[in-house]
C-alpha cells in the first residue's frame, strides 16, 4: 500500500515538491472515501480539512435563495476540494457533494497551516501551488461568465 507521502507526491498539485517537504506534509494527511451523494463540505462550516481527489467526482455549489443549490463546477482526479482553508476566517465558501464514490487524501488544515508557518519553504511552495490553482479557477470562472456559446447576434 502506498504511503500518504507517496500519494501526495503523485498529486498534480505537489508533484514537483522536494521529498523532504512531502514528508513534512504527510503527517497532516489521511485517506478518506465518500459514498455517492455524501456531503463533503458545507458552506459556512469551519475549514478544518480539505481534500485532494484521487478518484471519483464531486460537485461544488452555492446556496442561492429561492433557487436552492446552484452547481458551479465539478471536480475530479488531481483536483482539490476546498481552497478557503489557508485564509482567515477559515470557513468554507461553497458546499461540496460526492457525485460518484470518491477517494481523496484529507489534509488537516490547521496542521498544514502550522507547518507552513514554521517551515517557510513549505509555506512558500504550498501557497504558490494554491495561488496557481486559484488563478486557474479564476480564469475558468471568467470564461464561464463570458457565456461563450450563447447566441449573441443582435
Amino acid at each position, binding site marked *: 500500500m502506498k504511503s500518504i507521502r507517496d500519494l501526495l507526491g503523485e498529486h*498534480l498539485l505537489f508533484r514537483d515538491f522536494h521529498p523532504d517537504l512531502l514528508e513534512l506534509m504527510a503527517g497532516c494527511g489521511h485517506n478518506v472515501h465518500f459514498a455517492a451523494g455524501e456531503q463533503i463540505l458545507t458552506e459556512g462550516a469551519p475549514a478544518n480539512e480539505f481534500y485532494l481527489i484521487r478518484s471519483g467526482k464531486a*460537485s461544488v455549489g452555492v446556496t442561492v435563495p429561492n433557487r436552492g443549490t446552484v*452547481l458551479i463546477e*465539478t471536480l475530479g482526479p*488531481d483536483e482539490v476540494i476546498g481552497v478557503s482553508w489557508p485564509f482567515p476566517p477559515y470557513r468554507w465558501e461553497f458546499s461540496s457533494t460526492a457525485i460518484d464514490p470518491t477517494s481523496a487524501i484529507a489534509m488537516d488544515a490547521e496542521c498544514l497551516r502550522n507547518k507552513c508557518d514554521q517551515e517557510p519553504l513549505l509555506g512558500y511552495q504550498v501557497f504558490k501551488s494554491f495561488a496557481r490553482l486559484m488563478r486557474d479557477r479564476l*480564469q*475558468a470562472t471568467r*470564461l464561464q461568465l463570458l457565456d*461563450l456559446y450563447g*447566441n449573441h447576434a443582435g
Partner: protein
Amino acid sequence: MTPVLYRVEARHQELADTVTIRIAPIAGQLADPKPGQFEMLLAFGVGEVPISISGLGNGSGELEHTIRSVGAVTKALCTTAVGDVIGVRGPFGVGWDLDRATGHDLLIVAGGLGLAPLRPAMLEALTNRHRFGRLVLLVGARDPGSLMFVRELEQWRGRFDIDVAVTVDAAPPSWRGDVGVVTKLLSRAPVDFGNTTAVVCGPEVMMRFVAAGLADRGVPPGQILLSMERNMRCAIGHCGHCQLGPEFVCKDGPVFPWDRMEKLMLVRER
C-alpha cells in the same frame, strides 16, 4: 464559380436556433468535400454565407450542414423546408489534416456549435480507428439542453475504443455530468500530450485558451489545429474580406495550426 442547385432532403432541429439540413444535388454535383472544409450556401434573394460541412454523404453527393440562425441569411437557411432549393458553391478551404495525427493520439475539442465542423473528423477517425493511438473527444456546451448530436455522443460514449467527456458551463442540480469550462477537461484527457494531435473548434476565445492550455501541457504548437471563422465574401482568395495578416482564411484555412495563428488571433475582425 456559380452556385449549383441542391434540394433540402431532410431537416433536423438540433436546438431552438440551430438546424441540420441534408441536401442533395439536383443537377450537376460539386466535388466531394473533406472533413473541415466549408461551402458557401445561397438563400435565393437573401444572400450567401460560409457554412462548414457537418456530415459527408459518403459518395452519394448528399451533404449535411448545421446552421445557427444569427442573421438574415442563416435565418433563411434555418427555415428552409424539405423540397426547398438552395445554391451551393464549394467545397472551400483546407480541412482537418488527420494524416498529421497518424500514429499519434488524436484529441478532438469542441465548444458549442464547433462540434458541427468536427463531426466529419470524428466520423473519419472512427472509420480509420487503427491509424491513431488514443482517441479522445472533449465537448463543452452552454448547458445540458444546448448539446447537439446527442444521440451520436451517447453512441460514441458507449464505445470501448474512444473516450468522450462532456462538460457544461451551467447545469441544474439533476445533471450528473461535468460542470465547468472545457479547458478544465484538458488535464484529465487520457492522452500522451507530447505525442498528440489536437483538432479544436469553437468560439475564438475558447480556442485560444484551449490551444494555450494544450501547448502548456506539451502538445507541439504545429500539432494543434484550429478552425477560424472570419467574415467571407468570395471564398476564393480574391476579395480580401477574410484576410488575417498574411493568411486568407477562405483558402489558406479555415483550419490553421496554432503556431501560425497564435499572434494573428489577436487581430480583430474588420
